[in-house]
């Protein structure tokens, strides 16, 4: 069912969200509750024009997206979900003109909530630029929407 809203949501979450596409982020690997993405350096990502360092919000967006993809790959059935909270520690500034890689893992899925952990790095995975912890709310009833 190509028009199934849950499938449309999943298709978008698997790399096609408008916001991540506008940043240039791409998925490298998905599966088994894990995901890996790449964000090539681009001028519109810069947060400090003096140094060329990317805006922290870019890292936030990539961690949110990569964790969401990890959740999608951990679910046994297709359903929408939404970020409940996201905590990010910035270990060091990202190097300008260098790609950013983001890896995420879905640690646990309960009936209502999925728990994730993410890491952003550039040249070496053991020298992260940021670490994240996030929870996602699973929306099991397709007719119900998050409280407005």
């Amino acid at each position, binding site marked *: 069912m190509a028009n199934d809203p849950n499938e*449309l949501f999943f298709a978008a979450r698997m790399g096609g969200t408008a*916001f991540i596409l506008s940043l240039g982020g791409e998925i490298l690997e998905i599966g088994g509750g894990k995901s890996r993405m790449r964000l090539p350096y681009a001028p519109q990502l*810069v947060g*400090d024009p003096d140094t060329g360092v990317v*805006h922290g919000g870019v890292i936030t967006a990539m961690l949110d997206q990569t964790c969401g993809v990890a959740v999608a790959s951990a679910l046994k059935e297709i359903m929408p979900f939404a970020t*409940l909270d996201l*905590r990010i520690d*910035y270990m060091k*500034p990202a190097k300008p003109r260098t790609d950013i890689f983001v890896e995420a893992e879905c640690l646990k899925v309960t009936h209502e909530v999925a728990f994730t952990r993410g890491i952003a790095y550039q040249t070496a995975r053991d020298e992260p630029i940021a670490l994240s912890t996030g929870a996602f709310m699973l929306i099991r009833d397709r007719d119900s929407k998050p409280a407005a």
Partner: protein
Amino acid sequence: MELLKHAAYEKRAPDPAALLAAIPFCRHMGISATVVQGALTLVMPYQPLLIGNPVLPALHGGAIGAFLETAAIAQVAWELGGTELPKTIDISIDYLRTGRAVESSASARIAKRGRRVVNVHAELWQEDVAKPVASLRGHFLLAS
């Protein structure tokens, strides 16, 4: 940043609208700033590239987080001055409601100012300021 250095040299607060216009990622997200009755408010008009869930539709959690972080940084730069932008140490974002495909606003306040680190709280709302869509708490390092 040049703009911050000029403001600091002239002993005045930096122009928040000019500050945001000088940051490429803020231009990408369409973020602007207004000062009303001595308080700084940031505005992010809706545009399709901000979408994360095309079915509802809803804004991307990352767009919401990036906007809140920008509000916190802009508040610190505007209120405390300094010659460089404050650096984010950590942030914690709570998503309270669906971010709908409409204009968003955000404001921030400094909860605690230390010598090197400030604790900042920020909120994002859409049509009703009493119904926040998301909130942020964060620590930011002041330029030495």
